[in-house]
């Protein structure tokens, strides 16, 4: 009676957790399998905004063949894993891009393709063009170029696959892995 109890701190809570013997040996292969499955079946949302979309289409076409990387274009955001923003985004278009992004299930990734989607490009002084899609969606990979060559885009996709392979798949409360620096492709190209 009258004794004030000390509140349970986070450190104390952590110290109570007892690891399952051999747990890491069980979890690690499961995580490896899930990472492998995720990174090799990146379905991309089918949409193109301007001239970069032509280059994106030619990347998907037989000569460069995105199918080699398990990447096909899916025409619904509900079954897509990655969004390639290919081209400039106007102020009028931005809410719709945001809505498409919100409709995609986790885990979801964004590749900003081309100078306009990365930072506004030649329209940076324009009042109607958004200065980079990272103003309203989180971007994982920036692929610079005007437009970037298909090799550049494939480089970005491979870097994204590396990033997915290094992410923790099993996290508490559906958190994504530790936040990393965004990957920038072809900045000085």
């Amino acid at each position: 009676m009258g004794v004030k109890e000390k509140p349970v701190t986070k450190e104390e809570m952590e110290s109570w957790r007892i690891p399952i013997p051999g747990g890491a040996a069980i979890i690690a292969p499961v995580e490896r399998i899930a990472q492998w499955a995720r990174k090799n079946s990146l379905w991309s949302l089918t949409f193109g905004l301007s001239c970069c979309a032509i280059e994106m289409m030619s990347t998907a076409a037989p000569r460069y063949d995105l199918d080699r990387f398990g990447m096909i274009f899916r025409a619904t955001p509900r079954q897509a894993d990655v969004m390639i923003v290919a081209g400039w985004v106007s102020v009028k278009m931005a809410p719709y891009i945001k809505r498409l992004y919100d409709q995609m299930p986790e885990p979801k990734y964004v590749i900003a393709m081309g100078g306009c989607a990365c930072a506004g490009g030649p329209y940076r002084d324009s009042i109607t063009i958004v200065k980079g899609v990272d103003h309203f969606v989180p971007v994982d990979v920036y692929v610079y170029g005007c437009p970037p060559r298909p090799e550049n885009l494939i480089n970005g996709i491979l870097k994204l696959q590396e990033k997915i392979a290094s992410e923790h798949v099993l996290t508490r409360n559906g958190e994504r892995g530790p936040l990393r620096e965004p990957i920038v492709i072809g900045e000085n190209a």
Partner: protein
Amino acid sequence: MPTPEAVSKLQQLFSEDQLKVDWAGKDLVLDVDCDSMKKLCLFLRRDPDFDYDFLVDLTSWDIGESFPLWYRLYSMRFNHTVLIRTNVSRDNPIIASVTDIWPGADWLERECFDMYGIDFEGHPFQGDLAQMRILMPKDWDGFPFRKDYEPVFSGDPLHGPQERN
């Protein structure tokens, strides 16, 4: 090329200061007063000698004191073209809509409203700012093709222009 009789019919209907008839090659060029524009359009559509049944283009620009408004009409039957030129004052930019004559004028008039703020009286969406906007977002401030337009920076990329940098 319209016959001289048809052109004289046109000149009888309108006074000198309402309408000036000119020729550019084989095509008529009509400089018309802003108020009698609708009357002229109705006449050109109804008269069997003209029969302009297709509105090719409707465009405007800013010259400072007023907005010139050009209508280009085409007659499928006679293979005629006519250019109607009129001026809308900057202080009171109101002109009669021609959507009831050529329904295709709807989007062209909305574009003129969107860029210059010219009010088309009788347009189906007249007075409804959000519906009249066709190219700009619905909540845009101002008319961006006017020479004195200054953007209002909202800073929010989803609703308007951001700061210049």
